[in-house]
């Protein structure tokens, strides 16, 4: 029994860490730009497709895998830049409803572009040889790729921690999440800052997509599951809160993994049950108002 629980915990952690990478991008955009970015899932999907193209062009080796992990965030980051400058900024002064509808339109456009470029067949990216197979942790089997996902999630967390605590950019982003108007009044170009946050958020979504490509299949519609879960994680953790995104991702990942073992009929809905409970008792989420711990 203990082994079964341990296996579920490892599975839940690796799932949670990928969710964290994607949801952090979403919560930063949400917190800083005050936009519910419905295109986030589509950008994640685009990251996976770009990772496929980069890997297949380079022949699916280890180098190709690394190139895909680096290349996908850059490509979708560039797209994010174009969307922010070309579309979002033009309606920044309008009501938030317009922005929500606009990001939804962007999601549909990206999905159609993906279909036009890559076609409708589902694709796969093989795992690089050094991440194939599994290792024994005690007596439980853990696929190496799952450990890798956990490691990348931790690395992203560490990088964000350093940027947000040690750099001027990070300090300003935190300030913009807490009170963007005040920051503007103090003389900071908030628009410029928000533009960078949007690109950073998109890059994190792209990285999430590139990480999941070798883990699963690359297919149209892979954005749906991710966008809904990411929003749930953002709301559970508190809008704009990175520590909240981490807590939310891990809670959701673990609740689902353990739920599958102990109460399978509730496993798929566990994320919404948690969301409902959090909304009932802590409307601003677990870490609302706190960007970092």
């Amino acid at each position, binding site marked *: 029994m203990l*082994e*079964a629980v341990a*296996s*579920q915990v490892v*599975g*839940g952690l*690796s*799932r949670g860490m*990928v969710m964290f990478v994607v949801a952090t991008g979403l919560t930063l955009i949400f917190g800083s730009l005050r936009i519910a970015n419905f295109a986030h899932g589509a950008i994640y999907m685009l990251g996976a497709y770009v990772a496929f193209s980069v890997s297949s062009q380079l022949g699916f080796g280890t180098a190709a895998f690394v190139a895909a992990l680096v290349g996908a965030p850059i490509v979708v980051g560039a797209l994010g830049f174009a969307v922010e400058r070309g579309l979002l900024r033009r309606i920044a002064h309008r009501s938030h409803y317009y922005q929500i509808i606009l990001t939804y339109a962007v999601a549909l456009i990206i999905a159609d572009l993906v*279909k036009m470029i890559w*076609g*409708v*067949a*589902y*694709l*796969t990216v*093989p*795992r690089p040889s050094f991440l*194939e*197979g*599994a290792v024994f942790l005690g007596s439980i*089997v853990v*696929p*190496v*790729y*799952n450990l890798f996902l956990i490691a990348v999630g931790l690395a992203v967390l560490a990088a964000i921690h350093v940027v947000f605590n040690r750099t001027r950019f990070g300090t300003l982003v935190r300030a913009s999440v807490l009170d963007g108007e005040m920051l503007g009044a103090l003389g900071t170009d908030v628009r410029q800052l928000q533009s960078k946050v949007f690109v950073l958020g998109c890059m994190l979504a792209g990285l999430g997509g590139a990480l*999941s490509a*070798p*883990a*699963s*299949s690359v*297919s*149209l*519609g*892979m954005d*749906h*599951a*991710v966008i809904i879960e990411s929003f749930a994680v953002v709301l559970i953790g508190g809008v704009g809160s990175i520590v909240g995104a981490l807590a939310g991702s891990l809670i959701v990942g673990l609740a*689902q*993994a353990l739920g*599958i*073992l102990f109460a*399978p009929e509730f*496993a*798929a809905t566990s994320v919404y049950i948690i969301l409902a409970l959090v909304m009932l008792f802590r409307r601003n989420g677990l870490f609302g108002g706190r960007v970092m711990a």
Partner: protein
Amino acid sequence: MTSRFNPSRRTVLAMGGAGAVALASRAWAQSKDPIKIGIATDLTGIAAAYANSQINGLRQAIDEINAAGGLLGREVALVVRDSQAKPDLGVSHARDLITSEKVSLLIGPVSSGVALGISNLAKQNKVPVIMTAPNTPRLAMELFHPYFFSVVPSGLMESRAIAAAIGKKARSFGFIGADYEASHQGLAYFKPWLKKVNPGAEVTVESFPKLGEPDHTSYITQLMSARPEVVFSYLWGADLVGFVKQAKPYGFFDRTIFASMFFFDDLRALGADMPDGIVGQMRAPFFALEGARMEEFTKNYRAKFNEYPADWAIMSYEAMQIFALASTKAGTVDSDPVVGAIEAIQYDGLRGQISFRKEDHQANVPSFIGTSVPDPAYPFKVFGSMSRIPAEEIWPSIEEVEASRRA
């Protein structure tokens, strides 16, 4: 004919004869209206790849028919609409195909949900419809009508076929399928047949991830904790591909016999990632079908579409040829004589001799079951030593069919 192309209605009118064939046939194409075949299928959404193959299969058949002088001296034209996997949209497109385009035959979509609506419409308008992908048993059982035909083994037949093939291999069975109606049904059909094949066998663990689940890891460890000897899977498409990739490093396929429906699309996507020794059930595996006609079909199909034919293409090709043969026999494309001719047909198809049972218009098509192996001829794994489970051994008895209609 190009003047009928009307992109504003999201309509794609595909001429049966492309290129040289169309030019050669211009003389008679102008003298008589073409016979139109309509398909409203799920070109957008998770089944889009299958819908594309359906259309390619139909095109292949129609091109051959037109090259041989058409049908009853008339050209055959295909009219394609995108139902986007939405039942209401599928029905309105199909209605328009019947009333505006005056199609002589409807080919069903991919999604069973859309198919239920389109079948009902075919019934009301007395237009024959042939299903080449959706396979909910309800279509041929309680919702049956004389204008409905299916060249796909129903979900009931497939669950029984796999129970027949693997039931004796073990005592403890696991199940995994996406959490939606078809998989719950699939398990419900599997269990009694398993008991029939092997009274001591038991399904000891059931797993229902959500449709479109990106990470099956926790379901894999759940299944493995229960240590079933065989896992019967109702996963398909991107879900199945993700599951196989995620289960492989756990040694899942070394410890467990994994038996699942596979579409050719899955084998192509997985490539070398597909483990050996998986028990696969297929509807129309081009690599295992024998005969000169199958070889020629694959050759022509690859030349035209630059890919191997998926199950959907083969079944759709056969459906079109069945309609052509039946109308030739009937000497007309009018619904009632054509329906009578299809009922009596003996079609020498790519999957073998095909005829339809009078009571439910289900084609007597087999289930193909084999074990995954590499094949140097292809860049993907295939299923070797495939056996055919004949429809007659597994389809619902006439009593079962009638009982479903009384309920």
